[in-house]
C-alpha cells in the first residue's frame, strides 16, 4: 500500500467548525459566551493606531535639529487639526515669523532633537471583526476576540480569489460537468453564492459581479481567464486580499474540469441555505485553502466520513492530476512495487489505472488523488 497524494481537501456533510475571530490589536469584544450570532454580525471592534507621518521640521523651518523642540507650539500627545499651526520660528525682532501648519489631522507623537523630525500620528483607524459564520459564541478572549462554533457542512476548494463573504447558495447549472457561462447568470442571483459545474468562464465572472453575486464556485477555470479577471498574471499563490467585488473558488484545479460529484451533490443538498465563503489561499508553509461553510441545524444526523485522501488500494476511485491524463477518473487496477521508467525517462513508483473506457494506463503514484464518487 502507498499513500496517495492529496492536497488534504476536506469535504464533509457535518462537522463542528470553530471560527476564531480575533482583532489585530486589543479592543472591545461585543459578545459573551453562549450568545447566538449571525454571520454578518460585528463581534469585536477596535481602533488601530493611525498612519504615521514623519515631518522633517528642521528642514521645513530651516533651523538646526536641536532647536525644533523649543519651536513646537504643542507638546507630545497634543491633537492637531489639518491646517493648524504646530511650529513657529521666533523671527527677527518678532517679525518675519515662519509658521508650519499641520498637513494632516493627528497627534504629535514624538519630537526628536537629534534629527529634527516630528512624528505625527493620524487618527485611529476603526477595525471591525464579523462573526463570519452563524453559530454560538463558545469562548471569549477578553479584548482580543471570540470563537464562534457551529455544526456545518464544510467544503475546501483548491484555489480562490477574494476574502470572506456570505450569501444564499444558488445553482446556475444542472450538472457537475456543465461549463458556467454568462447566460446562466440571472439578476435574482444578487447577494448569492452561485454554484457552477465544470469550468467558470471569464464572462460568467463578469456577469456575476454585475448582478451583485457575492461568490462564484466552480470545478475549474482557465488561467488565461484568471489573468483577465485580476488584470495581472498571478505569480505567487497567496490570495484573499483582492478587492474584485466577488469571491471566486475553484474546487478541482485549472482547466476544463468537472466539479467532483461528491462536492456538487453536497452543495445541491444545501441549495437555498446560507453559506460563508472565503477565497483566501496560501500554498506554502502554513497551507491555507479556500472554504465554503454551510451552518446547519445541530442534531444527531449521521456524520459522513470525511474525504481526506487515504491509501491506494486496488479498486479505489481516483483522479489523475497531471498531464497527459489530467482530470481523467479511473480506479486502481494494479500497484507494481518496482519503479517504472516513465515516458520522461525518469524512474518512479507507479500504479496501473483502469479508465472508465476500459483502457488501462500507467501513472506515477505522485500524480493521482483519491476521490469518492
Amino acid at each position, binding site marked *: 500500500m502507498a499513500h496517495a497524494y492529496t492536497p488534504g481537501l476536506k469535504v464533509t456533510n457535518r462537522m463542528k467548525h470553530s471560527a476564531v475571530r480575533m482583532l489585530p490589536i486589543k479592543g472591545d469584544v461585543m459578545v459573551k459566551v453562549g450568545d447566538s450570532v449571525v454571520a454578518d454580525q460585528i463581534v469585536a471592534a477596535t481602533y488601530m493606531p493611525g498612519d504615521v507621518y514623519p515631518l522633517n521640521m528642521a528642514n521645513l523651518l530651516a533651523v538646526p535639529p536641536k532647536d525644533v523642540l523649543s519651536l513646537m507650539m504643542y507638546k507630545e500627545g497634543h491633537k492637531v487639526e489639518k491646517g493648524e499651526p504646530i511650529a513657529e520660528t521666533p523671527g527677527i525682532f518678532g517679525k518675519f515669523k515662519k509658521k508650519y501648519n499641520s498637513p494632516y489631522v493627528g497627534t504629535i507623537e514624538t519630537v526628536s532633537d537629534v534629527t529634527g523630525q516630528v512624528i505625527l500620528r493620524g487618527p485611529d483607524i476603526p477595525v471591525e471583526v464579523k462573526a463570519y459564520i452563524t453559530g454560538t459564541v463558545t469562548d471569549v478572549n477578553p479584548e482580543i476576540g471570540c470563537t464562534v462554533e457551529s455544526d456545518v457542512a464544510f467544503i475546501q476548494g483548491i484555489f480562490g480569489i477574494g476574502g470572506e463573504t456570505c450569501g444564499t447558495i444558488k445553482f446556475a447549472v444542472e450538472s457537475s460537468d456543465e461549463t458556467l457561462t454568462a447566460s446562466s447568470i440571472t439578476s435574482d442571483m444578487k447577494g448569492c453564492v452561485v454554484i457552477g459545474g465544470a469550468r467558470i468562464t471569464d464572462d460568467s465572472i463578469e456577469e456575476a459581479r454585475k448582478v451583485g453575486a457575492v461568490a462564484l464556485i466552480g470545478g475549474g477555470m482557465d488561467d488565461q481567464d484568471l489573468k483577465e479577471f485580476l488584470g495581472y498574471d498571478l505569480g505567487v499563490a497567496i490570495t484573499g486580499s483582492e478587492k474584485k467585488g466577488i469571491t471566486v473558488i475553484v474546487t478541482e484545479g485549472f482547466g476544463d474540469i468537472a466539479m467532483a460529484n461528491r462536492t456538487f451533490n453536497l452543495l445541491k443538498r444545501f441549495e437555498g441555505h446560507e453559506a460563508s465563503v472565503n477565497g483566501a489561499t496560501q500554498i506554502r508553509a502554513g497551507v491555507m485553502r479556500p472554504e465554503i461553510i454551510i451552518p446547519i441545524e445541530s442534531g444527531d444526523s449521521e456524520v459522513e466520513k470525511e474525504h481526506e485522501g487515504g491509501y491506494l488500494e486496488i479498486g479505489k476511485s481516483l483522479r489523475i492530476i497531471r498531464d497527459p491524463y*489530467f482530470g481523467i477518473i479511473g480506479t486502481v487496477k494494479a500497484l507494481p512495487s518496482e519503479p517504472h521508467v516513465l515516458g520522461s525517462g525518469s524512474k518512479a513508483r507507479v500504479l496501473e489505472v483502469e479508465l472508465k473506457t476500459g483502457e488501462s494506463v500507467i501513472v506515477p503514484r505522485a500524480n493521482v488523488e483519491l476521490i469518492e464518487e
Partner: protein
Amino acid sequence: MTIDLENINVILATDCGSTTTKAILIEKIDGQYRQTYRGEAPTTVEKPFANVTIGVTNAVTEVGELAGRKLTNEDGTINQPAQGDDGCDLYISTSSAGGGLQMMVAGVIAEMTAASAKRAALGAGAIVMDVISTNDKRRPHEQIQRIRELRPDMILISGGTDGGTTEKVVQLAELIAPAKPQPRFGSEYEMPIIFAGNKMAASEVELALQEDWIDLAIVENLRPKLEQENLGPARDKIHDVFLEHVMAHAPGYDMLMDWADAPIMPTPGAVGDILQTIAKKENINVVGVDIGGATTDVFSVFEGTFNRTVSANLGMSYSISNVCAEATMPNVLRWVHFDMDERQLRNRVKNKMIRPTTIPQSLESLIFEQAVAREALRLAYIQHKEFATTLKGVQQQRTVGDTFSQQTGGNTIVNNMTLNLLVASGGVLSHAPNMNQTAMMLVDSFEPEGCTDLAKDSIFMMPHLGVLSAVHPEAASQVFERDCLVYLGTCIAAKGLGKEGKLCFNWTLSGDVNASGTCNFGDLELIDMTPDQTATILCDPVRGFDLGAGNGKKVSHEVRGGTVGLIIDGRGRPLGLPEDRQQCQMSMKTWVENMALYEEIDVAVATA
C-alpha cells in the same frame, strides 16, 4: 567544547529542511574521510510532532540501519562517542525548517550601506524580506506601513560610515520604533535588532530604540569606510541571534542544540561556507546554485569575495507560476523544440503550483519543466550579478581613457570568463533523467565563457559539509572532492557574436583524448570524455571571439571529462536564440540532437 580532530573517525551530520531531514554518515577509511551512507525522514517541526529531534532520530536511525551501526540510544539521543562498530565521534547539523531565517534590513543609502547590510544578512543564510533606505523612493509613512506588515525574525540596521552621518541613521531607527513590527513567533517574542552602523550614532540609536519589545545588540560598523566592508561581526551576530532567539522558539531545537557538537547553522549559510572553503583551497572562482520548489539560491566566490542571493519567488513548484509570469511564456517556450498550446500550458503551470508534488510523466512535460528551469536559473543569475558588485560610492581615480566611460563603481564582480567551476543542486537539476540535460540547463542559463568545469552535488550534502568545514576542514574538503561532486564535464564556449555558420574557432584536443575540429557560429557539439580522462584543448578563435586569452587570441585550457563529456559551444555570448519561432525551434532541435538530450518525442503523447 574542544574537539580532538585526530581521533575523529565517524561523523554524523543532519540537515533539517522544511520538509525532509537528511542525515549522512562520514567515516575514515584507509586514512581518508568518505561519505558512506545516507538516510532521510520527514521533518517533524510542525504539529502533531512539534519536535525537530523526532525527524532527526528517524533519519539517523535509517542511516544506522544501512550502516549496521547503532547511532541512536534507546531514548533517541545520538550515541557518542564511537566505540567499535557503534556510535559516532562528531555530530553536527544545519537547519532551514520553519521557513529558515527571515530578516528585514535597513541602511541609509540603498546602493551603499543598505546593500552591504543585505549582503551581510544573505551571507549569514537569511531570507531578506525587504530593504529600507532613505532613498528607496518610498515616502516615510509608506516605509513605516511596510515595516508594520512584515513579520521578520530580526532586523539589521546599518548606515553611515564611522564618523559620517548620524542624523540619517537615527531617522531609520525612528521609523522602526513606531512601526513596531510583529514577529512570527508571537507577541511575547522580543524583536532582536542588530545595529551595525556608524559607531558615533550608536548611543542615539539605542535611545531611539528604547522599547520593551526590542532586544538591541550593537556590533562593529559593517561599512566603516566607503572603500571597506566589514561584514564578519554582523554575520556572526546574526548567527548568534539565530541560535539564541529564532531557533530557541522552534520546537525541539533546544534539545538539538544540546546534541550537536558545533553551533547549528542556517542551511544556505553552510553551503556558502563550503564553497568559500573550496574556492580558497583550490584558488578558483566558483558559482553554485540550488533550485528548489519555492526559491533559488545562487552562491559565488570570485577572487575570494563571497556573495549569495536568494531569489525568493523563483522555483519549480510553489513558484513555477511566478517564473512564467516574470520570464513570460514566449521566453520559456524558446527552449522547447516543438509547438505547444500556450493556453493549455498556462493551466498546467497553475496546476503544478496548486499541487506541487506531482512529477512530469511525459517527455513533453519534462521538456517544458526544464525550459521553465532554464528561465528560473537565468533570472536568478541576473539578480545575482546585479547584487554581487564592487562597492558603490567609492571614489575612483580616472584617466583620460575613462572620459567616455559611464562606469561609476558598483560593477558586477561576476565574470563568466574567469569562472572555473559551476555546481548544480536542487531537484530539477539533480533528478534529471540524464545528466546531459543537467549540463545543458546550466550552460543555457548561466552562459559560462572560456573554459568551465560543470558539476552537480550528488546528494545535496553541501550544507552538511559547510558546518563540517568549520569544525574539521580537512574532512570536509576530502568528502567534497571524492563524494560530494559528480563532474559532468567541461564547457568550452566562445564569447562574441557572429554570423550563423561562419568560423568561430578551431580546436585541437590532446591527452587522454586526441581530436580536432572546427566550431562554427551556432554550433554545439559533444565530445566523449569519461570522468577519468583529462586533456589539453588548444583553441584558435577568429577575430571577434574570445576564449579566455582575448579577442582572436589562441588559448589552451586543461579540460576534464565527466558523465557528460566535453561540450564545445559556438553559439556565442551573450547567448541569443533566433527571434523567429520556427527558426528557433530548428536551432533547438539541432542542439537537442547534438547533445543527445532527449529520445524522440512521442507526438501522440504531446498532443494528448
